């Protein structure tokens, strides 16, 4: 289980290193506008082939690149009903704070749980390697957080039940 996680993350890291070559590109259609081309997808010559990396049916990562921006969409594993609501709650919590994260997208791309949008401006401000480190660490942290939340719910449930039943003895 841990092995596939390492491989998955290494693959994503390598793809990001190759894809993160962004440069400033003013908009071709409208004067004096500068838009992230990966969001608009109007000119095919500015877009690269999107790459889809699947760990299994439930977990995948879509990396779409263009000349001045890069979009990473993640789908996180959700095994049961409880994990489903915990993931939704946590990722919504993060997405609402997208302003603080700068590279996070407020709404995930259709069919995915969370999305990042990295533009050339971010690459100018931050080091490329550290940015990739951050994305990979983010993915690990999401997994860890969801499993810890689930464990805390189960532990609390166990404690609540035991205390209640002990009252009857």
């Amino acid at each position: 289980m841990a092995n596939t996680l390492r491989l998955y993350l290494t693959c994503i890291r390598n793809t990001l290193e190759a894809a993160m070559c962004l440069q400033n590109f003013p908009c071709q259609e409208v004067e004096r506008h500068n838009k992230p081309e990966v969001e608009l997808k109007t000119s095919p010559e500015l877009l690269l082939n999107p790459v889809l990396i699947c760990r299994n049916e439930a977990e995948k990562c879509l990396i779409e690149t263009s000349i001045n921006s890069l979009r990473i969409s993640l789908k996180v594993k959700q095994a049961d009903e409880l994990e489903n609501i915990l993931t939704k709650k946590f990722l919504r919590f993060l997405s609402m704070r997208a302003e603080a994260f700068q590279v996070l997208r407020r709404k995930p791309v259709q069919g995915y749980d969370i999305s990042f949008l990295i533009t050339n401006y971010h690459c100018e401000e931050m080091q490329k390697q550290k940015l990739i480190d951050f994305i990979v660490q983010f993915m690990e942290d999401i997994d860890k957080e969801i499993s810890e939340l689930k464990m805390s719910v189960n532990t609390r449930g166990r404690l609540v039940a035991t205390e209640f039943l002990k009252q009857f003895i």
Partner: protein
Amino acid sequence: MILLQSHSRFLLQTLLNRVQNLEKSVELDYHWVEFDDVRYHVQVSMKNPHILLLSVSLPTPPLEAVFLGGLPFGAIEAIKAAYGVIVQILDPPRDGFNLTLKLNLSKLPPDEEYKHALLVKIASVREVVLGAPLRVILKYLASRTVAPDMDHLVALVHRPNESFFLVPQQAEKVTVVFPMRFKDSIDTVLATSFLQEFVESRRTAGLSNAPPCLWSHSPPLELKGATDDALSANAGFVTFVIFPRHVEGKKLDRTVWNLSTFHAYVNYHVKCSEGFMHTRMRRRVESLIQALNRAKPDQEKTKKTAHTRSFKRLSLKDSCTNSSS
């Protein structure tokens, strides 16, 4: 505080304050609400500082558990038995309340411990009144007899417009069924996982004396004959089987309180759990933002130039190469 306590802390505090300052005349008029829509009103007037009027309003019962005479059955006897001469039931109760009690605080027993215990009992008026019908049925169980002319399926109110069910007709056991309903979908999922833990943890050693407990998604057989809206529950049905050993002696009061507030207990812990998750998520967000800030090299540079001066040392080799190129 894991378990819900049977006395209302605010009411106990008010009573203790009054008893300590019995001779001081003061005007009190407090209204407050507790969980599951139980409202209290306390009134003390300047003319009679040792008389305290306590009014209680109970949650609205659904159709199958309607109060006859405005109070659950057995409530008046339970009040008289628990409080004795200190308390007088006023009939009719104040407007908007199910029960009004006139407490004569000068008639409290002089012994400190006994007085405190009685005040705690008065602050647990909710347990005495709402739990009265359950207490009556469980008392029969403790004496291993069957209650005369009791219905096959008894519905008792525990939340506004919701009730739980008892099957009291066997002498050796009483089956209690709780339909669990939650408004929010997240609450429902969390509660379902908690309720399944009840079944799991009973299997562990040391709890084999606790009442057997079952959880099912669909209404159990005991609820055959109940109305349709009583049978809809989005977090399933919990069944407890209570035996005489759970209600003998001192345990009766505790069992009555725990069963009356079971739904409130689960709800309370679901909400605590959500609060805890929020705290965790906020901490995680902070640590992630710190990780992101490490990706920015600019901040370190400005720190350095403010306090230190850094020189780049030129060696002879460098100067040689510079001049040649």
